[in-house]
């Protein structure tokens, strides 16, 4: 049985990755998870300089999901190169570094710093809903998406994955724009902007007022968007958004994702990634799927089955 998938010239031992921002750089979860079993670790976003992030409270639970407004707190690229990359290099998994910035120059600076680092791919966060400048501002206009993608591609030594926001009218427009800009792959979806109000205090629960919603409640939205993008572009997709079980991951692959990322599920069960990998294997055995690549984009109307 083959669980390996290929994307951007790389072979992943299985399609399961961690979603950026939910797994740090892997060190904390290494007490619960065998990092060697992961297809890839996608790190928390890193900028050119350290960011302090937003005031607290930064998270809130909602029915079937959660909101976060961390604000891309990160230690900056210098410490990240000195500490986080050497830690990840000790494991036999692919390293995907998520890059964030307030300006195009910020992103480019990080991408250049990573050029000679043992990093397998770059994931560019143009979709964070929780920072005032940068982030989502770049991800909601197809012209800007194409421009920033092209600018990053000029300087990137590794394949570039653009991470798209679902907070747009038509995500396929953004997917096409990223592809036109030279993106090697796409990650989708980032969180959906939400809000929670404390009715007892009559105030916002999050200090940032709004936050990004994740968790099982957004999974059908993510599946729909992955499916739409799979029809719209020819580059590989990494599907994410509320993947809590192997069934969720398989749905995403059938919708057209080459790989999947598990995020919020790790908060509910620190070993979620491991259980999802085992569950995918069980599904393949039960349905006698010899190669997981048979499942990518294999959804079809029942009458044609």
């Amino acid at each position: 049985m083959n669980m390996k998938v290929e994307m951007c010239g790389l072979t992943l031992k299985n399609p399961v990755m961690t979603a950026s921002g939910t797994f740090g750089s892997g060190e904390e979860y290494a007490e619960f998870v065998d990092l060697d079993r992961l297809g890839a670790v996608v790190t928390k976003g890193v900028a050119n300089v350290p960011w302090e992030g937003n005031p607290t409270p930064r998270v809130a639970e909602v029915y079937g999901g959660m909101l976060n407004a961390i604000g891309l707190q990160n230690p900056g690229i210098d410490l990240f190169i000195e500490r986080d990359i050497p830690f990840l290099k000790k494991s036999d998994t692919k390293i995907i570094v998520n890059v964030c910035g307030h300006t195009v120059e910020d992103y480019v600076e990080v991408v250049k710093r990573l050029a000679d680092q043992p990093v397998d791919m770059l994931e560019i966060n143009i979709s964070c809903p929780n920072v005032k400048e940068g982030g989502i501002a770049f991800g909601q206009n197809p012209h800007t998406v194409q421009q920033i993608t092209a600018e990053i591609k000029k300087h990137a030594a590794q394949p570039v994955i653009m991470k798209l926001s679902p907070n747009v009218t038509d995500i396929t427009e953004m997917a096409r724009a990223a592809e036109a800009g030279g993106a090697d792959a796409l990650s989708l979806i980032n969180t959906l902007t939400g809000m929670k109000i404390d009715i007892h205090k009559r105030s916002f629960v999050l200090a940032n007022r709004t936050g990004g919603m994740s968790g099982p409640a957004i999974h059908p939205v993510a599946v729909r968007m992955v499916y739409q993008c799979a029809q719209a572009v020819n580059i590989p997709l990494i599907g994410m958004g509320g993947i809590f079980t192997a069934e969720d991951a398989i749905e995403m692959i059938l919708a057209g994702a080459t790989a999947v990322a598990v995020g919020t599920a790790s908060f509910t069960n620190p070993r979620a990634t491991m259980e999802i990998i085992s569950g995918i294997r069980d599904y393949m055995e039960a349905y006698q799927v010899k190669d997981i690549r048979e499942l990518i984009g294999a959804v079809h109307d029942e009458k044609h089955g």
Partner: protein
Amino acid sequence: MQTTQRKFQETAIIIRQEEIADNIYSMWLRTEQIAAHAAAGQFVSVYCNDGSRLLPRPVSICEIDRKDGAVRLVYRVAGKGTEEFCTMRTGNHLNVVGPLGNGFPKKERRAFLIGGGIGIPPMLQLAKELHCEKQIVLGFRDDTFLVDEFKRYGKVYIATEDGSAGTDGNVLDAIRENGLCADIIYACGPLPMLRALKEYAAAKHIECWISLEERMACGIGACLACVCRSKNRDVHTNVKNKRICKEGPVFRAGEVEF
């Protein structure tokens, strides 16, 4: 301080549970590995069985029974998650991860152990483990709880906001009214109480250790949800904040701003 202890994911069995005051519950859990490794002042993440509630509830450890492999959690029902926990009975299962964070450093010096409201429970295990002269000061809004259990480990002073028991006022009023003094403070409770104690300790030039809380997601230091501002740049975050779940929840009062 650096966390070096191991963390465990366990399916805990509820040994017994009772309501010890209005909306305050005491639950003993069989958790062999967590009990064997836990220290006073650490906490555990308790996961809901209801799948619509994703995030673990951080609950401080009130008592550790290492011989019987059990921990005691005393918590206030404050929302849907704790409402679920409080209906559970002997023999029911709960997923728990722990022990998490750093506990109180044990220094055998004339000590104040100060708890306010739902910050009182973690002071009980510390009271059990410290063998020095202890003055235990507990602040309540109205109903008191755990008072008799604390009395087994030291002299207990009480303050209530409604004046129904002990000193009419807060824990500092109780300290002043009884003319108490000590060389070190250990405290857990609401932020206004901790701020007042930080100021009191600075004025008296005594060491002060406080336990903070914040809304958490992962509980193990990965997500950066539960940070507090710090006086200096933190080694891990590389900015002026610290992770309460990892570097805390117990901090030296002077190193954090709250």
